[in-house]
């Protein structure tokens, strides 16, 4: 019995001696106090930057963007964005707040330039419907990688990383002066190819797609088919940054700064990776695929089919410069149909808009006929106007004559293949006269 009692007692002692660990020494304050302090510290850091913050915003599906943020202590933020020419120069105010989610977090909580990138509506910044460019506007603070002058943010939805760097007074002034838009002068050279030269020795031709901020140079055959030669670019203060280095002859180029356009010489000067850079417009590219015109023409002719264009000619920097989309009843595309018919013993090609007929169906009501094209050894193809097929309605005549005449320029065109899909390839047909007019052909 004694043993039982002793055993019982010792069990009780064991149970009773569960001495509590004094945990007050690990943190001197409660979790809530520490969270409040962290949020206050983040707020003080954001709004305490006298000249604001410059930021690199990364998206999962649309490349990188440069931003400028100026936060105050009453939930307001002003920003600039390299997204387009307007957002780069127009300060826009919206709201933000700091909130304790799973971590101290920064929420841009009403629509701003940041949300333009994340917007699931493709009309906003492109990307897939329902996804946008897959970027963020709700971030947590990555304190481990941040310093006094740098804040690393991680998106809570798409996990994108945004880096804020404390701006200097000079940078702030440059942002407010509109320098973020300076890189857009690249689009002032209206030629299809722009020749980038580093230090008078190394050069490359490059095609710039302003809409998707993409630059690509031709492969050895003279076509734009090698994606490894292309890269997205971002507007930066006073220039551009390439997502991956652009190969220029024996050198590479990762950024352009101090960029300036000279209207009299139609050229750009800049500094790139510390070296002097010049950019000029190209009429005849360094590499021309001399076989491209006949390959293009035969592809459609061999199938008794036609090439289509949706917007017609891009001329001097203007898409659809001849307004073919405004043709009465325009059905969304125009065609180039090799060997469409025969007239007076001539097998003629037809260049024609597709328009809706009286019952709303697509019809080929009128078009311009051309003699068989002349393929020159230097890679140019020349179209010779033969006559008009059908009757051109009065309201369509001006546009019709403009497109008919543009195709028949005497110097002709060279062709650049932009997709080598075996079933539906695509080409750009570029004016050999001045390099400032081109049309996209899809199959």
């Amino acid at each position, binding site marked *: 019995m004694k043993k039982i009692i002793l055993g019982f007692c010792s069990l009780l002692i064991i*149970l009773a001696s569960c001495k509590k660990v004094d945990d007050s020494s690990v943190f001197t304050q409660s979790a809530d106090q520490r969270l409040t302090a962290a949020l206050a510290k983040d707020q003080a850091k954001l709004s305490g930057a006298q000249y604001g913050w410059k930021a690199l915003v990364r998206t999962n599906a649309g490349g990188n963007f440069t931003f400028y943020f100026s936060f105050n202590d009453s939930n307001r933020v002003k920003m600039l964005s390299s997204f387009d020419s307007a957002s780069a120069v127009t300060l826009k105010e919206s*709201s933000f707040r700091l909130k304790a989610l799973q971590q101290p977090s920064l929420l841009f909580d009403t*629509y701003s330039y940041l949300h333009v990138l994340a917007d*699931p509506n493709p009309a906003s910044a492109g990307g897939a419907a329902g996804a946008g460019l897959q970027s963020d506007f709700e971030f947590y603070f990555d304190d481990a990688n941040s310093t006094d002058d740098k804040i690393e943010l991680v998106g809570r939805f798409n996990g994108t990383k945004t880096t804020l760097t404390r701006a200097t007074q000079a940078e702030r002034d440059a942002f407010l002066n509109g320098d973020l838009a300076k890189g857009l002068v690249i689009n002032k050279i209206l030629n299809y190819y722009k020749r980038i030269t580093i230090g008078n020795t190394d050069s490359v031709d490059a095609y710039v797609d302003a809409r998707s901020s993409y630059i690509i140079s031709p492969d050895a055959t003279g076509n734009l088919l090698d994606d490894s030669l292309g890269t997205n670019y971002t507007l930066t203060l006073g220039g551009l940054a390439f997502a991956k280095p652009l190969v220029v002859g024996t050198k590479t180029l990762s950024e352009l700064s101090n960029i300036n356009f000279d209207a009299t010489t139609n050229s750009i000067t800049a500094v790139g990776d510390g070296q002097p850079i010049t950019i000029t417009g190209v009429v005849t590219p360094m590499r021309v695929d001399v076989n491209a015109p006949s390959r293009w023409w035969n592809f459609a002719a061999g199938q008794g089919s036609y090439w289509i264009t949706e917007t017609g000619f891009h001329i001097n920097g203007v898409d659809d410069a001849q307004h073919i989309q405004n043709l009465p009843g325009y059905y969304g595309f125009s065609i180039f149909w090799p060997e469409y018919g025969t007239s007076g013993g001539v097998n003629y090609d037809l260049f024609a808009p597709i328009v809706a007929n009286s019952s709303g169906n697509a019809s080929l009501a009128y078009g311009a006929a051309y003699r068989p094209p002349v393929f020159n050894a230097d890679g140019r193809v020349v179209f010779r106007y033969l006559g008009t097929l059908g009757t051109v309605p009065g309201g369509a005549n001006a546009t019709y004559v403009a497109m008919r005449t543009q195709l028949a320029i005497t110097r002709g065109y060279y062709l650049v293949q932009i997709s080598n899909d075996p079933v539906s390839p695509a080409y750009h047909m570029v004016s050999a006269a001045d390099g400032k007019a081109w049309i996209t052909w899809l199959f």
Partner: protein
Amino acid sequence: MKLLKFSFAIIMASSLFVSCKKEDPLGPLENIPGLGGDEWVQTGIDKWIYDTLTVPYNIGVKYKWDQGEIDQDKTLVPPAESQIIPVMDAINKVWIRTYVSQAGLPFFKVISPKFFILVGSPAYDRGSIKLGTAEGGRKVVLYDINNFRIKGMPGYNPGVDTPGVIQMFHTIQHEFAHILDQNVRVPLTFSTSSANSYTSDWLNVTPDEAHNEGFITQYSISSRDDDWAEMLATLLVNGKSYFDNYVNSIDPANVTATGTTGAQARQRLRDKEAALVTYFEQAWHIDFYELQSRTRAAINNLLY
């Protein structure tokens, strides 16, 4: 016996030891971040919402981003600040004031949802676009606020913007119809004549097919509940003449693949309209046709 007493004493004593739990101080409760809701420096928008909607109707509007209120797995963005007052003002005119003047303030205060969540973009869902949802008769989420444009707003283009505005009011009336139904159940007579045509595969029914089956919209063929909500929303937002044209444009000689004749389809729509008018009279003492013309007039004022 002694032993028992002894051990009892030990047990008592030890339980005293065990229960000598130290009381932790509760700490500064007032410092819990986010306790009592989000806080920010109030702006004119917040004051407008408070004065115009919260004080008279106890309705709150959350326009600042809060992922917790909406689908966690969808890409969405908050609305632009410049859109908040125009949207809520339009809702006030077309939905709140028409019901209040037709049915009285107590009716509206009791029945109305109390919480609006505004989202800037549409919600993309399996190839379709969602423009509104409602939860538990209390919360209404409105999407695509950034594309809302009415007369007097910069860039307003009646041909392009009107359908979106009509759609937004349609969404609110649709959700409100569900709430009415949840408070006083719509009688079965509403759907009796249409009952055998409902299908959950409504996305594969074309609007024309739904029309010829006697349904007011493509979505209304999905179920009795949504048929009700679509009928009420369309009747209020599009008005009586639209509905009459819609009914009369069904060819009486037409027979659908499921065997519904044009005459039956017309009768279905008329039956549902009649049941709806009776319901409003009996359940809520509301003259539906008066409410309809008030709503339509309010929409016309915003758009034309």
